[in-house]
Every structure is written in structure tokens, then in C-alpha cells.
């Protein structure tokens, strides 16, 4: 018997609210199947399961807020006899956690409270907070043992922005929660990660020419956009320099398997998510365009999958749309590097000994000095710019 | 032909009615053969739980039960297959009960120890030793208060006389002069403890006498003696002369229950008693005295074998009560606990 646990979908995730089970006891589940929808500070996420078998029992109930690592369901393995339950000890519980993004246990200030430090909140208050979309973690408790009570939730709800209707109140609170989550992750990054920054300005006229040629005969709906080329170039550069593709955990670098680039997506109304574009390096131009569009759509509908929040080995942020020339990014822990792109700007450019007007782009790398040194960063950036300047190398035929 | 007054009170020779002789033998035989089948079915796993056999004691149920009227009440113990059969509960319903089938006389809920048939006033199987005696007093009290002339017959074993409920009940019945017949089947062992090892006074009739109950002891291996004595007692109780106590001295040939290695008694003792088998002695004497034809035994055996086979077939064909009915009949209305 294995235990399907609340996955950690980010270093900043402490718990999730189980919104919906998509499976029922007795059903077969396949590896990779979406089995539940979990509401996090970052929105509702389709959570996948990583073991095939049959659903023995659903432990968590819909509507229940479950700390990361706690059991959601029991899964009987494919060749397990029925009726037998193997109790997992504390150690194996830790080890079997889906990608564990929480810091190592020796750290002085744990991000995830231990079980004994769970929020003390009455069941009724928990239910009411969920109805209001209010995160009770920030509410101070006045009940027995300092627990958060119904009254505390009511006071907290009143103290917040007077909401015109119950429907908009959760949105406000969800955004506040997301802000808190981003704050926690970014603060951790700046606190823990010794960043170093490298930058390079390159001429993108060849890449744009390639793009125009590619799009020339196509209807609007099938045309590529420039970020597809950027992502492709980053993916190829990572293949060449795998030292930047992965995570820093427990004092060591852990390389990612495959290239899954995190794509930073600004949400309407504020906030940010960086879901992974799975197997970025294996996607054809059209496939990548489709995948990117799908990812954007789902990110804005709060329907990301759990693996998309944990798989990325490096994140790419593009603030070019907003007219920013260059980005000095903050790495999303436990990743070890972040690539930033600015906007296309026309600059005087020397080509073949002549000054010409050319559209240029600033590409930057922020990297974790614990894992890599400047030389590796430089090699990566070189690979990246080379690929963008020689677009025929992006998808060699 | 001797008159009733001069006729011997016991043995087949005391009878002058071939029909009655045949009926007594038939009743004893069907109890014996039915129970032998039960033992076989128990070993085959068809019957489970405890199974207490009456084999050796058949003369009591067979002899006593005809003395009771339909309107009378019968309460018995967990060794009550014979009483149920003799009271007229169909063999198939009893066997189905032992199978746990819903066609059983208690819907399969009671098994061997809890046979009931309210329509026949058979408030049968109590598996708490002595536990039925107070109920018998209550049945009789209700009849008395309602002005009915029914008699309540309560069978129990020698083990029950050690229970407080025996003494409380005899006292109360005598105090209120209620129409109860206390019928003690003394088979000499309370489970595995011999009477001498659990009673300071082994004369059980003397105990009843202490409560001023008229009492009598009778040879429980002699079906005619049982019948005669019980008839007289029923008449007396029905006539409003208060409760009465009868001791039937008997012996069980088989173990207390199926799972009993019988460490507490000698095989020789059992063999000695088997020589007094109520069926064999009565059949032999009845044939010898010309009351029954030599062929009667075989005819009855065939008849009984057919009935037992039919009972088994009925039980086999029975059905299991649906699990959804599990909590039915806990209360009159379906009550959420």
C-alpha cells in the first residue's frame, strides 16, 4: 500500500485545499493521471499521481485543507494482495514525498511548520474561512489555546476590504495569499542564493527573418511568436550546459531529467506563476506554440497541473512586452538559474564593418554561485545567443 | 386388562393403547435420528455455533409434552431440539434454524440454542442457565391475572438449581401460587461438573420442598413414567393448586456439546447408562408385551428417516436473510440507534 500525499508544489506551499476528487475508491489509476484538484495560494491545480494501482481509500475530504506531505489517499500497488496495509514510518514518509521542495531539516527557520505547529483553528472557523476564501493562517486566535475561532474569522473578514459581494471577496484574498507566497519564495531566494548575473546584447535580425519566413504563408492562428524561439534557444543551451538545469537541495545540486523550462506568466490582476513547459527541447515549433498557448490559458484559469509547478529546472522570464530592456532576475528556489529577456530595441549595429540599424535583444542570466561559477554561466549564455543568432540551428532539418 | 388404578405406573407394560405406544416410540426416534443427523451436519460444517445434543434424554420431551395443551406455554434451555420437535415445531424449520437460514423457526437468527415458535407457545431456547425460570413465573402470572387456565412448563437442567434465579423463581411462584410446572432434567452433570461436585444437597426435590412446592422424582429413562407423572402434575397445576416441581432422572449419552472430550466421566459409566436407553428398552418391552408389532420399529425408522431427510433438504434449500435485514426486529419500529 502506498500513500498518496499532498504534493509540495513549490517551496512556498504549506498546504492545499482539496477541491475535488477525480477518482473514487476502487478505481484504477495510471501513472500520471490527474486524480484531484487542489486549491493553493496559486490557484486550483490538477494533481497527478505517480504510481499506478487502485484507489484503496480516499483519506482527505473535499473541502479539507491538507498540509503538504499529509496523506490524501491510499493506493494499492498493482501486484499487492488486498487487505494488507504496510505502515510507513516517519522516515519513509519523508522520503516518499512527491518532489520535496522544502528546505533541509537542519535549517534554523523552517518554512513548513512541523506537524505539532499546525495552525490551531476550530473546524467551524476553518469551514467559514474556506467559504470566505480567507486564509486563516494570518488570523490571530482568541480561542482555547490561542486557536482561531469563528469570531476571529468574522473579525478578520470585516477588517479586510469591504467586499461588494461574497464572490469577489475570495479573489481579493486569493491574490493576497499569492502575494504572500511570492514574497516568501523570493525572500528565501535572496536570503539563501548567492546570485551572480551575466548579460549579453545580441542582434536578432536573422531570427526575425527566419520567423517572418516561417509565418509568411500561415494564417494568423498558426503563426509563431518570438518567445518560442527564445525558449528553444534556452532549451538547446541547457542541453549543452546541463549544470544550470536542476535544483539545489540538501546542500547539493540535483540535475533535472529532461528539459522543462519554467515560463514566467504574469496573471491578470496581479501575481505570477512559472509553470513548466514539459520537454521544451523536444517540441517542434508548432507543438511548442500550441503548448505555450495552452499553458498560458490554463495558468490564467487556475487549472495548472501539479507537475507543471514542480518540474521546471530553470525559469525564463520575458518582460519585453512591457518595454523593459534588461532583466536582472531573482532565481525561483530551488532552481539554480533564471534567464531574462528584455524587449526588442533598434540599435546601431556593426555588421561586416558597417554600422546598420538592427533590432537587438538583451539576454541575461542570474545563476546560483553555490552551483556554478561565472565560466559556466558564460558558456551557457554564449550557447543561447549563438542559437538565437543562427536560427537555422534551432530546428535543424 | 388392568384398570387405571391398578396398572403399573411405568414401562411399556403400563400402556394399553397401541396408538400411544407407537406415538411415544415415534417421538423418541425422531428426536434421536434428527440429532444424529445434526451431529453429522455439524462435523460437515453445515451447522455451527454450539450444538448440545439431547440423545439419551428423549423420553422426557417425548413423554412430557403430550401432557400439555396447545394453550400452555413451554420454556426450555439450549438443549431443546427434542422439546421443539415434541411440541410440534416442524423438523424442517428447526433444521433450517440450525443452518442459519431465514426459513428457520427463529429466522436463522438464533441457531441451535434459540429455537422459538410463538404460535405454538414454544418460548424455547434460553442459553443462560436458569434464565428462563423468571420468565415462566411471568407467563403464569399473566395467565393468572387474566383469568386463563393455561399452565407454563419450564424445562431446565440440574445445573440451573445452583443459580439464584432458580431459588427466586420457585419462591415467587410458590408465594403467589402460580400455575408453573418446574421440570428439572437431572442428567447428573452441569456441563462437566457432577451433581455431587456442585450441590451440597443432591436431592433436588428437597430443594423445591423448601419453598413448599409439591415435588416428585421420576425415572427419566422411562417414557411411560415420565408421561404419567407429568400428566398428573399438569392436572394438579391447572386445577389451581399452585406450582409443582418434577425431577426427571436421566443421562445424556453424548458429550455436553460437540467440542467436549468428556474428561469428567468414565466411559464405563456412559456404557452402563446406555443399557437403559429409553428407546431400546421401550421398543423391546412394547413388542414383548404385544403392544407393538415386530415390524413397527422398522416402519417408524423409515418414516423418521424420511422426515429427517426432508428436513435437511428443506434447510439446504433455505435462503440467507439479506444483510440489509441485519438490524430488523431490534425494535418494533426501525430505530436509528
Amino acid at each position, binding site marked *: 500500500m502506498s500513500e498518496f500525499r499532498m504534493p509540495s508544489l513549490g517551496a512556498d506551499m504549506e498546504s492545499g485545499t482539496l477541491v475535488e476528487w477525480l477518482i473514487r475508491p476502487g478505481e484504477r489509476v495510471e501513472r500520471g493521471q490527474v486524480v484531484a484538484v487542489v486549491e493553493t495560494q496559486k490557484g486550483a491545480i490538477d494533481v497527478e499521481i505517480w504510481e499506478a494501482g487502485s484507489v484503496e481509500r480516499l483519506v482527505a475530504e473535499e473541502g479539507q485543507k491538507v498540509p503538504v506531505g499529509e496523506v490524501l489517499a491510499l493506493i494499492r500497488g498493482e501486484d499487492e494482495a488486498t487487505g494488507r496495509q504496510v505502515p510507513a514510518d516517519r522516515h519513509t514518509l519523508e522520503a516518499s514525498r512527491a518532489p520535496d521542495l522544502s528546505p533541509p531539516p537542519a535549517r534554523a527557520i523552517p518554512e513548513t511548520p512541523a506537524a505539532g505547529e499546525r495552525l490551531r483553528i476550530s473546524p467551524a472557523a476553518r469551514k467559514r474561512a474556506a467559504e470566505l476564501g480567507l486564509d486563516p493562517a494570518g488570523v490571530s486566535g482568541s480561542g482555547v489555546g490561542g486557536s482561531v475561532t469563528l469570531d476571529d474569522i468574522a473579525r478578520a473578514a470585516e477588517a479586510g476590504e469591504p467586499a461588494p459581494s461574497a464572490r469577489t471577496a475570495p479573489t481579493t484574498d486569493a491574490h493576497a495569499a499569492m502575494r504572500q507566497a511570492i514574497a516568501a519564495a523570493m525572500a528565501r531566494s535572496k536570503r539563501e542564493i548567492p546570485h551572480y548575473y551575466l548579460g549579453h546584447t545580441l542582434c536578432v535580425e536573422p531570427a526575425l527573418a527566419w520567423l517572418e519566413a516561417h509565418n509568411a504563408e500561415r494564417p494568423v492562428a498558426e503563426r509563431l511568436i518570438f518567445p518560442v524561439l527564445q525558449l528553444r534557444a534556452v532549451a538547446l543551451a541547457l542541453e549543452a550546459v546541463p549544470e544550470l538545469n536542476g535544483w539545489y537541495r540538501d546542500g547539493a545540486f540535483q540535475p533535472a531529467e529532461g528539459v522543462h523550462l519554467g515560463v514566467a506568466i504574469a496573471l491578470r490582476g496581479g501575481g505570477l506563476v512559472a509553470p513548466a513547459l514539459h520537454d521544451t527541447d523536444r517540441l517542434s515549433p508548432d507543438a511548442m506554440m500550441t503548448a505555450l498557448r495552452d499553458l498560458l490559458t490554463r495558468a490564467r484559469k487556475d487549472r495548472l497541473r501539479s507537475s507543471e509547478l514542480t518540474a521546471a529546472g530553470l525559469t525564463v522570464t520575458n518582460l519585453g512586452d512591457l518595454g523593459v530592456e534588461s532583466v536582472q532576475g531573482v532565481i525561483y528556489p530551488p532552481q539554480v538559474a533564471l534567464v531574462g529577456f528584455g524587449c526588442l530595441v533598434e540599435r546601431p549595429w556593426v555588421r561586416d564593418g558597417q554600422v546598420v540599424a538592427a533590432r537587438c535583444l538583451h539576454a541575461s542570466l542570474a545563476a546560483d554561485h553555490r552551483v556554478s561559477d561565472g565560466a559556466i554561466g558564460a558558456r551557457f549564455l554564449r550557447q543561447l545567443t549563438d542559437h538565437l543568432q543562427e536560427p537555422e540551428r534551432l530546428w535543424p532539418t | 386388562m388392568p384398570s387405571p388404578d391398578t396398572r403399573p405406573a411405568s414401562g411399556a407394560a403400563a400402556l394399553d393403547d397401541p396408538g400411544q405406544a407407537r406415538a411415544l416410540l415415534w417421538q423418541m426416534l425422531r428426536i434421536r435420528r434428527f440429532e444424529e443427523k445434526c451431529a453429522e451436519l455439524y462435523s460437515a460444517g453445515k451447522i455451527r455455533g454450539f450444538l448440545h445434543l439431547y440423545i439419551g434424554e428423549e423420553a422426557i420431551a417425548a413423554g412430557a409434552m403430550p401432557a400439555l395443551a396447545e394453550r400452555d406455554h413451554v420454556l426450555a434451555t439450549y438443549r431443546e431440539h427434542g422439546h421443539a420437535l415434541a411440541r410440534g415445531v416442524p423438523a424442517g424449520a428447526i433444521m433450517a434454524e440450525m443452518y442459519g437460514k431465514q426459513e428457520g423457526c427463529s429466522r436463522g437468527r438464533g441457531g441451535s440454542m434459540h429455537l422459538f415458535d410463538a404460535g405454538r407457545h414454544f418460548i424455547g431456547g434460553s442459553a443462560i442457565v436458569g*434464565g428462563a425460570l*423468571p420468565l415462566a413465573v411471568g407467563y403464569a402470572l399473566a395467565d393468572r*391475572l387474566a383469568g386463563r387456565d393455561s399452565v407454563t412448563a419450564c424445562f431446565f437442567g440440574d445445573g440451573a438449581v445452583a443459580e439464584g434465579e432458580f431459588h427466586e423463581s420457585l419462591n415467587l411462584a410458590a408465594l403467589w401460587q402460580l400455575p408453573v410446572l418446574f421440570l428439572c432434567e437431572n442428567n447428573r452433570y452441569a456441563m462437566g461438573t457432577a451433581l455431587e461436585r456442585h450441590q451440597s444437597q443432591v436431592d433436588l426435590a428437597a430443594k423445591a420442598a423448601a419453598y413448599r412446592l409439591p415435588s416428585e422424582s421420576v425415572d427419566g429413562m422411562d417414557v411411560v413414567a415420565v408421561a404419567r407423572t407429568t400428566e398428573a402434575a399438569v392436572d394438579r397445576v391447572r386445577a389451581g393448586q399452585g406450582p409443582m416441581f418434577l425431577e426427571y432422572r436421566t443421562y445424556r449419552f453424548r458429550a455436553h456439546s460437540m467440542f467436549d472430550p468428556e474428561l469428567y466421566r468414565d466411559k464405563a459409566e456412559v456404557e452402563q447408562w446406555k443399557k437403559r436407553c429409553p428407546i431400546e428398552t421401550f421398543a423391546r418391552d412394547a413388542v414383548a408385551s404385544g403392544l407393538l408389532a415386530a415390524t413397527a420399529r422398522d416402519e417408524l425408522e423409515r418414516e423418521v428417516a424420511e422426515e429427517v431427510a426432508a428436513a435437511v433438504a428443506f434447510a439446504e434449500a433455505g435462503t440467507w436473510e439479506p444483510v440489509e435485514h441485519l438490524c430488523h426486529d431490534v425494535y418494533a419500529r426501525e430505530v436509528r440507534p
Partner: protein
Amino acid sequence: MTTQTIAYREALRQGLHAALARDERVFLMGEDVGRYGGTYAVSHGLLEAFGEARIRDTPLSESAFTGAGIGAALNGLRPIVEIMTVNFSLLALDQIMNNAATLRHMSGGQLNVPLVIRMTTGGGRQLAAQHSHSLEGWYAHIPGLRIVAPATHEDARGMLLAALEDPDPVLIFEHALLLNVEGTVKGEPHPMELDHAVIRREGGQVSLITYGGMLHKTLAAADQLAAAGIDAEVLDLRTLRPLDDAAIMASVAKTHRVVVVDEGWRSGSLSAEIITRINEQAFFELDAPPVRVCTQEVPIPYPRHLEDAAIPQIEDIVAAVHRLMGGPGSGATS
């Protein structure tokens, strides 16, 4: 309708009188119910009114006369068996458990036991460790029995009448300390149904769930709490088996806090059962851990001060509610 103010004892007597008068099948049986007039004078005068056949003094044979009550009920009558006090009922436990409670089911529905057993329960009279306990929670454990605890005068009269109409065995627990308490009743005795708990005091902040002798202490505690600004609801269970889950959960859903006040001991008890059901059925309505006020886990001692300390008192209930509400003395946890 005329309103009378009578003692609880008189209300019980009115109930018995009405039951005997309206149904010839009814009779009363027990120790000293007749010539003595009842140990607690509940049946005083009934012998003269109904005669020895129907008001039956028994020997001190709890098992025999309780079993006889079962037999008489099986055989068509409607006996009322009085057991002097709950501790003595243990002598009849075999009959109650192995016969009254089981016969309907065990016989496949052929038999039923329309018997009423009344007994005195509870402490507070310095009668020490064999006359003072509250074992109704034990009996409420047993499927096949209905367990009721009339706390008001109307219930004292009317639940007996309803119990006699029930086709199954009903055990009525009458708290000894209520016997002299005066209260009002209206008109003639009439059956008071046995299915529902009743809110004796409406409130919004905490549910005090109780029954029997503790109802009056709990109502007094609620008065004190009101003076302290706490609006307590008091739910009188009335029937302990089957419990009125709906009424319990409705009250908890309204107040979100619960204190169970039970004169029984707490380990493996009725109060434990009630709180477990609340956890099972209304967990997400709770705004604080449920609390119990129960008798201390000792045999009830004789001296007044120790008995008082053993049994829940008004101040214990008040203090428990304050702790729960975070008020005075809330630093202490039990």
C-alpha cells in the same frame, strides 16, 4: 386547562394512577410498592385504589420479579416493574440484557416485550457507594432497550404513559433528587412522546446538553452564565437511547460550542457517545473542543463535602463554560 403545582413524586404517582386506570393490562410490581407505599412514596395510595393483584409487593428478588415482568409482558400484559435503585438493577441485569433486550431479534421478530422498568438513579443524598450511581448510560449501550430520563413534571407523568404504549422494553430513570422538586403540570396526564430531545432554554453561544437530574443544575448554570453575558442553550435529551442526533446536531450547528453535563462517569460513557457523534456528524460546526462535566471517577462517598465534590455542581458547569468561552479561569484546561 387547569395548571397544578406539584412535586415530581406526585407527577410520577399521577402517571402511574392514570396508567393503571386506563388499561387493565397494566400492573405495578416491585419491592415495597404496596403496603409500604413505595420506598420513595411514589406509589402511596395505589394499593388502596387498585388492589393487591395489580399493586404487587415482591420479595427482594430483582432477577425473578424483573424476569416475571418480562414473561408477563410476553404473555400479553403491560407490567411496570419498579426497581428500588439503579444499583439494585444489576441483580436483574441478566433478565434485562439477555431476555428483554434480545428476545425480539433472537426469535426472528416473533416475540416482543412491552415492559416498563422504572428505577431511581443518581446521587446527592449521602447514600454512599451502593445507592448513588448513574448507570443509565450503561443501559443505553444495549440495542433493544429504550432508555428515558424524565426531568420535568410533565415528562414524569407522560413518559410513563408513552412507555406503556411502546411495544418494546423501556427503562425509565427517575433522579432521586427530583422527587421533592415542585413544578407545574397542565390538565390530566397524557403521553409525552419518547423520540425527541427538547430545548429547555434557547441560546446562541454554547449548547449545554444534559438530561434527568442534571437538567435543573444546568438550567441554573445557564442563568448564572446569562448574568455573565454568555447566552447558553440547554438541550434536555429526555431519551438516552435512541439519542436524538438531529436535535443535538442542530443545537451544535447553531452555537458551535458544546458542553455535555452527565452525572455518569466519563470513561466509556454516554457523554463520550454524545461527543463522538458530534465529532462524526458536526465536526465542521465546532468552534472549540467539546467539553464534559461528569462525575468524578470514584465510588460515591458518604460525607456531604466529598459527595458534592464527586458530583457535577452548578459552579462546575459554569466554570467549564467559561473555560470553553475563554472567559474567567480559562487558563486552566481539564
